[in-house]
């Protein structure tokens, strides 16, 4: 929530602010520097711009520049007043409806829907048509009537999502009153939405005022940009080529609209960091490797809510790594404990001295630091580590799914492809050309993502998500063949094959994870990366899924890299364990050895913590 300084970082917001400030200054001080009264006639008519008349004169010899700056006052004032009024209405409607729910909300929701759907401009025209006087304020009020609804709807949605957030519940538990919760807890978090709504209404109001005046529905005795355009149009300025008369006001409306929209853009990006572009994006980049399992659920809810406040959790991840280390036992000094692997079989993936960096403004953050591991055929490699240890970055590097701006700055990842003759060729994964990478993916290395609810496309049937893979990697297969295979795979993971036509939301969490596993298996890859595949599941379901995985591994013989923060789980199931802490591999060796004889202090701490918490270690 904190702005580092008053001057925003985003170039867009800067540009927008400059535009708005320029026009505000123009409106405030402009009239002082003009030599002519805005409606004073008597100058030579229809003069093009000159030193005397910066923007020329009108048909009746009025000074266009003077009208322009005076018009800026009216347009901005109407925009501002309507913006404020409509935000007041929408805050009341949105907050009250969203917070209290129930019958009041239903009524307000329907009211909002009515004003949302009924087209604003015709309503505006009809309302204005009946207005006896058309002063600035009454026009602004009428514009408010037609423009509050969109913001109210967004605000209601925002309030709905905020009221279920824990801090609201916590505030209630503390004993805060409803009013106080609404206006001190919920509303500040909705500020970006309100600000965005304000800008939106302001743009709408400026446009509406201009449109109304242009139609002759405004007050023509008031000089505004719209009435300038009205007179220009009425006097055939277009036909006599008096561009100086109608270009400036229209352009100004467009530019100020763009200015406000740019600021709005900034707010959107602030609320939803994914939208950032160029510089502001790089700046916002944070070491995702430090993003942790524990964190990701907040991040996910943040993305789902797409609200501003959630970005705070984004910000926090960067700072968190720093402070967190004060709590964890910091044993950087201890050397990594690497034990030889006793796993039989040929290597299938070997990582050598891998380095992954996240460039930030304060220099690169090293998310993975000289990590070397080897995965053998059929091996289950457990990758353990807490939030920010770099384990996800490591697997993402292997799967070539690192997102900008993370980059591999050193080391190599080799895939050992077995050929038919039983020999093995080495594939440099990091430098695999795009087409070969595409072919390599899924057929040789598949992934099971942490949260299957998010990993399955919600709008496609399960069958279609099998099909995608098969069409690309088994182009010769018939549709019937594909369906049969998909059903067979579902059967293998213990799901009724008939469910192949189901949509993801029709399946339970455990079933979705099984489906994800089935999809991962469909091409019988050599390696499956399982990124916290069971974390989101309940204990009993987790156990079932794990059993399923183990069975399938026996059947197919694929190798697994299994990442989790649950060390006790790894100790139980994996052949080899790699423990990571802040980007480095601190302990690596056979699971039984690591369990019975942890050597690195960090591993020891982890194990003792588990014991203390009552786990059966």
């Amino acid at each position: 929530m904190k702005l580092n300084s008053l001057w925003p970082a985003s170039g867009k917001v800067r540009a927008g602010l400059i535009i708005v400030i320029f026009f505000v200054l123009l409106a405030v001080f402009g009239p002082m520097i003009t030599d002519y009264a805005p409606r004073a006639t008597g100058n030579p008519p229809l003069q093009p711009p000159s030193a005397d008349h910066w923007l020329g004169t009108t048909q009746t010899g009025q000074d266009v520049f003077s009208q322009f700056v005076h018009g800026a006052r009216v347009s901005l004032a109407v925009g501002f007043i309507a913006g404020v009024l409509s935000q007041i209405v929408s805050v009341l409607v949105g907050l009250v409806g969203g917070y209290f729910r129930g019958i009041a909300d239903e009524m307000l929701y329907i009211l909002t829907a009515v004003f949302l759907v009924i087209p604003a401009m015709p309503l505006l025209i009809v309302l204005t048509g009946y207005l006896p006087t058309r002063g600035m304020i009454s026009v602004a009020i009428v514009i408010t009537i037609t423009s509050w609804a969109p913001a109210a709807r967004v605000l209601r949605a925002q309030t709905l999502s905020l009221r279920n957030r824990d801090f609201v519940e916590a505030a209630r538990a503390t004993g805060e009153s409803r009013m106080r919760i609404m206006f001190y807890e919920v509303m500040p978090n909705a500020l970006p939405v309100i600000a965005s709504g304000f800008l939106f209404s302001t743009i709408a109001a400026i446009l509406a005022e201009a449109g109304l005046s242009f139609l002759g529905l405004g007050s023509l005795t008031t000089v505004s940009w719209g009435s300038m355009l009205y007179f220009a149009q009425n006097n055939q300025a277009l036909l006599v080529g008096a561009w100086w008369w109608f270009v400036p006001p229209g352009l100004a409306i467009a530019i100020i609209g763009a200015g406000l929209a740019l600021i709005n853009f900034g707010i959107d990006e602030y609320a939803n960091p994914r939208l950032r572009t160029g510089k502001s994006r790089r700046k916002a980049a944070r070491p995702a490797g430090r993003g942790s399992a524990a964190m990701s659920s907040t991040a996910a809810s943040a993305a789902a809510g797409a609200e501003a406040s959630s970005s705070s959790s984004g910000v926090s991840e960067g700072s968190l790594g720093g402070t967190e280390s004060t709590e964890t036992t910091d044993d950087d000094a201890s050397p990594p404990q690497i034990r030889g692997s006793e796993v039989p079989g040929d290597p299938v993936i070997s990582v050598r001295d891998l380095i992954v960096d996240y460039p930030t403004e304060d220099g690169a953050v090293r998310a993975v630091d000289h990590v070397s591991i080897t995965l053998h055929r059929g091996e289950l490699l457990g990758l353990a580590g807490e939030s920010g240890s770099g384990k996800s970055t490591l697997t993402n590097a292997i799967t070539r799914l690192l997102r900008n701006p993370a980059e591999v700055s050193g080391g190599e990842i080799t895939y050992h492809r077995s050929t038919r003759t039983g020999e093995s060729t080495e594939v440099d994964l990091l430098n695999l050309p795009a087409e070969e990478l595409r072919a390599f993916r899924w057929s040789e290395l598949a992934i099971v993502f942490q949260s299957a609810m998010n990993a399955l496309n919600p709008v496609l049937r399960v069958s279609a998500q099998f099909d995608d893979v098969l069409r690309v990697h088994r182009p010769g297969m018939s549709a019937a063949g594909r369906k049969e295979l998909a059903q067979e795979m579902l059967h293998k993971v213990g799901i009724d094959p008939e469910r192949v036509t189901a949509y993801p939301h029709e399946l339970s969490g455990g079933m979705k994870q099984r489906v994800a596993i089935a999809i991962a298996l469909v091409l019988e890859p050599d390696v499956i990366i399982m990124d916290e595949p069971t974390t989101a599941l309940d204990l009993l379901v987790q156990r079932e899924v794990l059993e399923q995985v183990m069975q399938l591994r026996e059947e197919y013989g694929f190798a697994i890299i299994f990442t989790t923060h649950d060390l006790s789980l790894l100790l139980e199931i994996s052949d080899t364990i790699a423990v990571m802490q802040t980007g480095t591999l601190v302990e690596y060796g056979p699971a039984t050895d690591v369990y019975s004889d942890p050597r690195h202090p960090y591993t020891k701490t982890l194990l003792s913590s588990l014991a203390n918490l009552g786990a059966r270690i």
Partner: protein
Amino acid sequence: MKFLLRKVMLYVFIAWAALTLNFLIPRLMPGDPLVLLMERTEGRLDPGALEAMAEAYGLTDAPLVVQYWDYLSSLVQGDLGLSIGYYPVPVADIVAGAMPWTIGLVGVTTIISFLLGTGLGVILAWRRGKRSDYVLPALTFLNGVPYFWMALILVLIFSVNLGWFPVANAYQPILVPGWNPEFISSVIYHAILPALTIVIGSFAGWVLSMRNMTVTVLGEDYVTMAEAKGLPRRKVLLRYGARNAILPSITGFALSLGAVVGGSMLTEVIFNYPGVGYTLFQAVQNQDFPLMQGLFLVISLAVILANLLADIVYIFLDPRTRAEA
């Protein structure tokens, strides 16, 4: 189907609200349309005739409920009263003459700009961080340009200076409307510039919202999974990214359609296009309240209907809402 039913109920309610609003506005707002009628007839109406006319406009001293009932029952018969400005032409006739033009113009341009805008939005989202991001400020600018000003500029360039397109009418006035190639081509030719205005004025909004939605969706796990599946980029983008991103866009249709209709009304004024926008404008200028209200009602109902259609499309695109049924 329950979901659909609920939507239909909501829109029926909204339509009812629009009807009622239309009934209430003239009664709640200050002013008396009869004064204008008097003026228009230069005061030669005798009190009896005036009273009869007031009754025809539904402006009686009867209790509001009775007026409301009369209003609804005449609406059911398609009776929107008589226009003041074109007295005694029935409002319904005028509206019926204007509607096809606007529905044609706005309908076609909305579809074009929606397709163009969402397509471009998806492309921009895919190319995020590339040089194409620099288009965004330009689009933001376009999004802020008032329709009527855009129309003026287009008229200035293409009609006044270059003389490529006509500045007015929906077809060559000399032609008799009919389904013949000459007439149809004339209609299309006359619609190009207004359509261009509406497309330019509205597509930027679609681009921006679609880009934002797609960018957000592209960060979802299922997109990453699609990429990990080794699917071609195009497929990842369309089947996984755009397919999901378009859903909120369709919901946002309500917001945008109203704005497009509003903008196109001004466009019609500039191009003297004989649609509802221009007719409404003239009604306002003539203080032709019955016509104003009739048009407002019809426009509202059309937009409400379009929204309902959008919601139905949404149901087809999003299996999750279907399941709620």
